């Protein structure tokens, strides 16, 4: 036991990778799902344990060295409250959505490809967990590519339902690769300047370079900031921060339902995590924001994301796409939170990572049920479903309230901290944008809700409520999203820890 516990940081990444490989070979028929389910459940247990361990540590960090090679020569995993939280998010959502995926995927993906699907599924989760846990900038790139490549394929698997999944996947491949390349270029520049790939080590080695700033002979000035610029753009793209969100809506819309849910609730969250990590740990907030004013760029982008994303969401007729655009807006909230760089802001960011993953995941799952039962997710498909699928649609509506940020839903907690952070910084206009964003969310959510409850169905097909295996995960996510809105002590605690941790390392 102690061995496992000691090696948790490695196990949490390696397990899905290994089982994923196995799944691709032996995971035919139903076995693939069982393997994925078992793995993700184990991952969830591990990430919970890891979080407990981290919070138990005095300095709130758990270091792990791959193969016991010391950093900066080997790959070091460093777990702190921030990435422990993100790990929890990824593994929790991974587990719950896997639970849901069985019937949904079986109805959307050809039976012969199920083993590949679940293998890719596990690879994707591997990549996401790896990005989160690694302390090495280059390793991060590798894992980014693992998750991205598997995601592209997963999106493309929606082709049997809609051929557009292929074009969406191709777009995603092109743009995602550019983003990854940019990140890699950035890492390369930094390596040039510092000769290191370990994030903590780079940060340390950057200090003399920063110190030379403004003196007669600045060292590597242009190299470093060019590297930063590439990294920032690359990660913005992975994060789908406006205006680099172009890949997201179609990828979400045409992917199989479970994939949409997984992507929406974890992929962008991990992107956000990577961005936070680069800014706060690697670059140092004093330099990134204080000197380079990255925060201004981020605030502009995230403000625009909130407004434009919500506005575009209002105009969608496909509810999946509507949620995708809504995600763009929600990513704006997350980016805005850490751009403010105060305790409430980072808290808001982390809480929203968590809350939005639950809420949006739950809503996509509910849509998946609609897809499963009705066969489409256009607004017209949802007409009058309030009577036919009362539980599913109730869950969807509750999730919608969370997106709006109605009190006693988790979305409200995020918004509360975010607006507080804006006001603490004296950024009244940003606070206003956040609130206006809520109103726009009201509009797009209410369009759907009205359709659900007041729409008149033309076809009188007899739609039954979804099977329990789909309903339960949906309710778990939506229920959790409500629960953390009523009692936010857990989320505010871990997010507060993460914020403290990040701000403490401020140089």
């Amino acid at each position: 036991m102690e061995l496992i516990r000691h090696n948790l940081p490695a196990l949490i990444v390696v397990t899905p990778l290994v089982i994923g490989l196995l799944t691709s070979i032996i995971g035919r028929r139903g076995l693939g799902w069982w393997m994925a389910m078992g793995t993700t459940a184990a991952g969830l247990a591990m990430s919970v344990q890891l979080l407990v361990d981290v919070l138990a540590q005095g300095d709130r960090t758990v270091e792990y060295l791959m193969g016991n090679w010391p950093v900066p020569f080997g790959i070091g995993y460093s777990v702190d409250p921030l990435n422990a939280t993100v790990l929890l998010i990824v593994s929790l959502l991974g587990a719950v959505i896997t639970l849901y995926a069985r019937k949904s995927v079986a109805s959307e993906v050809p039976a012969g490809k199920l083993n590949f699907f679940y293998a890719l599924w596990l690879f994707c989760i591997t990549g996401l967990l790896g990005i989160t846990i690694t302390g090495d900038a280059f390793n991060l790139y590798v894992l980014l590519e693992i998750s991205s490549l598997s995601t592209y394929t997963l999106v493309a698997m929606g082709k049997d339902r809609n051929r557009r999944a292929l074009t969406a996947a191709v777009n995603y491949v092109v743009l995602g690769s550019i983003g990854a390349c940019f990140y890699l270029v950035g890492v390369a520049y930094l390596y040039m300047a510092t000769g290191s790939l370990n994030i903590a080590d780079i940060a340390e080695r950057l200090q003399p370079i920063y110190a030379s700033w403004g003196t007669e002979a600045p060292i590597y000035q242009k190299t470093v900031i060019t590297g930063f610029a590439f990294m920032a753009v690359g990660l913005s793209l992975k994060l789908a921060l406006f205006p680099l969100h172009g890949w997201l809506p179609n990828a979400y819309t045409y992917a199989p339902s479970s994939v949409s849910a997984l992507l929406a609730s974890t992929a962008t969250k991990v992107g956000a995590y990577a961005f936070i990590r680069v800014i706060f740990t690697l670059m140092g907030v004093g330099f990134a924001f204080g000197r380079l004013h990255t925060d201004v760029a981020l605030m502009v982008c995230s403000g625009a994301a909130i407004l434009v994303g919500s506005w575009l969401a209002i105009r969608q007729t496909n509810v999946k796409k509507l949620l995708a655009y809504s995600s763009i807006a929600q990513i704006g909230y997350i980016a805005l939170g850490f751009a403010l760089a105060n305790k409430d802001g980072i808290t808001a960011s982390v809480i929203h990572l968590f809350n939005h993953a639950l809420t949006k995941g739950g809503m996509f799952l509910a849509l998946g049920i609609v897809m499963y039962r009705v066969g489409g997710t256009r607004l017209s498909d949802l007409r009058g479903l309030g009577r036919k699928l009362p539980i599913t649609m109730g869950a969807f509506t509750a999730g919608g309230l969370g997106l709006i940020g109605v009190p006693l839903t988790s979305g409200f907690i995020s918004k509360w901290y975010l607006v507080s952070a804006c006001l603490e910084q004296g950024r009244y206009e940003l606070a206003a944008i956040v609130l206006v964003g809520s109103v726009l969310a009201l509009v797009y959510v209410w369009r759907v809700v009205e359709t659900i409850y007041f729409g008149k169905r033309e076809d009188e097909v007899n739609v039954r409520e979804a099977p329990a295996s789909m309903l339960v995960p949906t309710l778990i996510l939506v229920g959790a999203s409500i629960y953390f809105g009523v009692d936010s002590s857990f989320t505010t605690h871990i997010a507060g820890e993460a914020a403290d941790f990040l701000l403490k390392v401020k140089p």
Partner: protein
Amino acid sequence: MITPEQSAMLALGVPVIGFVLVAMSGRVPNLRETFTLLTALVTFACVAGLYPAVMRGEEVRFALLEVMPGVPLSFRVEPLGMVYALVATLLWIPNSLYSIGYMRANHEKNQTRFYACYPLAIASAVGIAFADNIFTMFVFYETLTLSTFPLVTHKGTTDAMRSGRVYLGILLTTSVCFQLFAVLWIYVLSMGDAPAVESINFTVGGVFRDGLASNRIDPGIVGLLFFLYIYGIGKAALMPVHRWLPAAMVAPTPVSAFLHAVAVVKAGVFCVIKVTVYVFGVGTMQLYGLGNWLLYMAGATIIVASLIAAFQDNLKKRLAYSTISQLSYVVMATALLTPLSIMAATFHIVAHAFGKITLFFAAGSVYTAAHKTQVSQLDGIGRRMPATMAAFTIGALSMIGVPPAVGFISKWYLIRGVMERGELPGTHLDEIFVLVVIAASTLLNASYFLPIIYRAFFKPLSDEDQKHPHGEAPMPIVYALCFTAGLTLLFFFWNKPATDLAEMVRRAVS
């Protein structure tokens, strides 16, 4: 014997239990209605049970849970909240009775949903009434909006949906963009070692006193916060955010009667009084002259809404605009910022609720018995429905403020409030404006209520109507409206509970 705290908790909890019971008993209408009435009675008993404790000045406070660190859902029963809670829960009883008569007679659909939403709205109303901090108030303010939305759109028609959109749009937009903004701003100001704001809890005398005295906060900011709050409380229907109220008239009449004469709109003006007294502080506002603009805005609303009301042919629309006008009476009284005017505002919550619910009941009674919605169709109806139209007349007199109806009493306190303000140094322009508004609005009120009474009692029935005989509405409806009309009269002669509570509010202010 239960403690006041438990009683207050029950007042919040019983409607929720009622909601569950009603939702589950949807298949047996009689049982469902029994649950509705029982819940109403028990809830009122719980609230009324708090009255002695409040009158003794006992501290009744409790917290449900801490939603965020330092931001709990906490409650405290104080006289002002008591007034609102009592009115809302008391009038729920006749309204339940009325609903039974109305919904059955009109064969409305989805009655279970209808009856289930009521207790939620009531629980929200009680939550608003007993809220101890601005966060709790905001939370229940929002739940009230959401729980009443299904009631407003009950009919499910395109028209109902459009109106529902306006209802939700205005109420949520204002509350999110303005009220939440203000709540958060105050919250942020209350943090730190030397906070500009004492706390987010409701505090007698307001939370800005120390901050202003020690220059930690600019009076301009306080004024801006007040503005945000006033327009963030869209339920007070201060122009120009009043449109939701006429839109909500698409709902069945019991909803219009109860929610848009009592629970929802009174929640709005109650919040206005509450934040003025317990967040901004009457003394502070007066000292820095922050409330004057509101006086004029409310005055303008009173007049303009009355003028619009005079030109509405739809009876419920006319009543809706009358409500807008009457709500601004409360707001204007609050903005006068004297102890007596706050008392007037508090009392008018009661006075207007009794009168207006009677008027709506009568409108619904006419709709049920005669299927008429327009004022111009009411010729001679007083002879066929004497009880209904007599109750309507009493309600109308209360609106005009003529004795012997309770509306007169609040007018009395309001004018005394003006006088009290007149004793303050300064020009008397504000006071004169208020007096002129009161006079003009009395006139306008008369001008749009009396024609209805005249039509009902003095004009002959039209030939068309002669062919369709009908009598009074079903008995539950008539009982309910006689009860509220009786209250309207009774409270002119005997209004001790309300005046005692209002008096306590006055003492808290001064």
